[in-house]
């Protein structure tokens, strides 16, 4: 039973990070039907900016949780700024282009941003200071669920509640939902569609940055390539849950996290990625629009 619980919480932690990143994919897709392939790189840039802030702060003598919060805030600001700029440069000019064009543009930006960080910073792995404090009350169960995992779970939970409130209760959320349903109609009723799209990118990028900072301080290292695998996995999670659906992204992330954790625990981690993508193909064959995705009728 212990073993099962260990794997369960391991998968939950992993899955909630996937969910956090997947939200960015799914929100963007919901509004402009674009797979923002560079989203994983935004996550990486968030982690890297946090590392830089934390590094500078450590050298100038700050310490502990204050760094974590400061680094987190700066990372969120910068990741959002990158997300905003990305949309403006690489996707907005292509809004009326054929579907394949913005996707290829996104792949291009993903490669570009990776190499930009590689060249501007370093190809090495850099140690990320372990900023998450160890709570004493977690000590007895630390072998199942440690403090960093707890912080990750709580943070993602709070973030998701806030996001849901934003979308369900506020005026901005209403405008976002309207844009998602019908962009032209939303424009007619006075929604500034361009601004809503930019905002979607900003929010999605901020979520990715939170994920980036949490993961970096959990595993303690950062390099320019961490975004690729995380992005692909989160994207898989989003598709799994039904891309375009917020609750689908969360569900997809958790399912993927558990699937990986249990597969590695009970079968073998040799074929970890095979399980991931095998699951994806299986679900897409059974339900081509994901678990919670609405099957959209194509119109002629």
């Amino acid at each position: 039973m212990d073993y099962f619980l260990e794997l369960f919480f391991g998968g939950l932690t992993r899955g909630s990070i996937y969910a956090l990143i997947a939200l960015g994919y799914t929100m963007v897709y919901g509004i402009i039907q674009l797979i923002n392939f560079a989203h994983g790189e935004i996550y990486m840039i968030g982690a890297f900016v946090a590392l830089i802030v934390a590094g500078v702060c450590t050298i100038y003598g700050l310490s502990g949780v204050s760094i974590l919060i400061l680094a987190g805030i700066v990372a969120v600001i910068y990741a959002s700024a990158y997300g905003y700029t990305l949309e403006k440069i690489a996707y907005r000019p292509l809004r009326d282009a054929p579907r394949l064009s913005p996707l290829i543009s996104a792949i291009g930006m993903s490669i570009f941003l990776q190499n930009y960080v590689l060249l501007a910073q370093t190809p090495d792995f850099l140690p990320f200071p372990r900023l998450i404090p160890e709570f004493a009350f977690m000590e007895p169960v630390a072998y199942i669920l440690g403090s960093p995992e707890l912080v990750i779970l709580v943070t993602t939970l709070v973030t998701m509640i806030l996001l849901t409130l934003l979308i369900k209760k506020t005026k901005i959320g209403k405008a976002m939902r309207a844009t998602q349903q019908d962009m032209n109609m939303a424009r007619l009723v006075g929604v500034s569609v361009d601004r809503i799209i930019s905002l979607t990118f900003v929010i999605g990028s901020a979520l990715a940055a939170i994920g980036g900072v949490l993961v970096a301080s959990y595993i303690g290292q950062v390099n320019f390539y961490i975004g690729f695998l995380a992005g692909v996995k989160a994207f898989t999670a989003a598709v799994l849950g039904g891309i375009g659906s917020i609750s689908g992204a969360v569900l997809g992330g958790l399912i993927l996290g558990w699937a990986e954790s249990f597969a590695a625990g009970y079968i073998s981690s040799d074929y970890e990625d095979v399980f991931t993508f095998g699951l994806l193909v299986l679900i897409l064959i059974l339900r081509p629009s994901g678990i919670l995705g609405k099957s959209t009728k194509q119109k002629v």
Partner: protein
Amino acid sequence: MTVLLSTLALLLSMTATGFAADTIKLGVAGPHSGDLAPYGIPAMRAAQLVVKQVNANGGILGKQVELLIQDDQCKPEIATNTATKLVTDGANVVLGHICSGATKAALGIYKDAKIPVMSPSATNPPLTQSGDYPNFFRTIASDDMQAKMAVDFALNKLGVKKIAILHDKGDYGKGFAEFAKKFVEESGKAEIVLFEGITPGAMDYSSIIQKVRRNDAEALIFGGYHPEASKLVSQLARKRVKAAFISDDGVKDDSFLKVAGSAAEGAYMTGPRDLSKIPLNAEAVAQFKAEYGSEPGAFFQEGYAAALALLNAIQKAGSTDYDAVTNALRTQYVETPVGKIKFDAKGDAEGVGFSVYTVKNGKFVELQ
């Protein structure tokens, strides 16, 4: 445009051979760009330092030594281009390549062209043991030696009975892990409870760590590099798993100490013998610091040793003739930063050794 470029390149290469007929050409190949550059650049700089010094002292056999530096990005397909380029440019001996895969791909080309090749870092055992490449030498011990040492240490010094073996699915890590598995099975002293590959770059390895605990492994032997190793040891510590962590020289890197922090304490790893007592090593490192103002980095000493050994062999052979040079490499001892070495019939260096290290107070300490 292609034609234009190639004509241009042809002209350039023609003028190059016209002027450079009376130099000895030392080819240097390895990753000098991209993410693996940190493994290739130190050896390249070592060669530059050695050549600078040799040329300042009047060269070899009355000739100056010329460096031909080529980037292979550690990719086999590019390495064949690199090797062809070096052969075409008339390299007499080659220092390189860095990665085992790239070396394997390139060796055939050098073999056909009868050029001795010496790698500072390609540790894949079949490179020397298969007997396929009589022109290949290396100044670093092979993976099976390391694996043997790690397993002997686990069995005899730590006396463990249950061993978990993990690897990163790469050619280096998996090779090491497989040799470790073989040696444990041959000894019959311990049982292998787990043999698995982990995915490099994955977010965490908690499930695999739980599995190590569940199987009551007393030691965890890991084949791979330091980024994954630091994740593993941190999670071992966090999940309160008591298994001893034993790994290879891909982990014996300062990054491991910094990234893993206190979790690294008590981890064991094999690595090239401590060189700090060898005078030539101190001299080489001092040269490097004077020139570049930083610590040398991975495979610097091995690269320095390889450059010295190759040039020394040409000197002793009295020519750049293939047979004479390889013969000199096999028979003549040479003083290098990795010790006084010569090469055995298969191409492995005699006199280069490995030791087991442990981490104590954030430093690597050599165990005797």
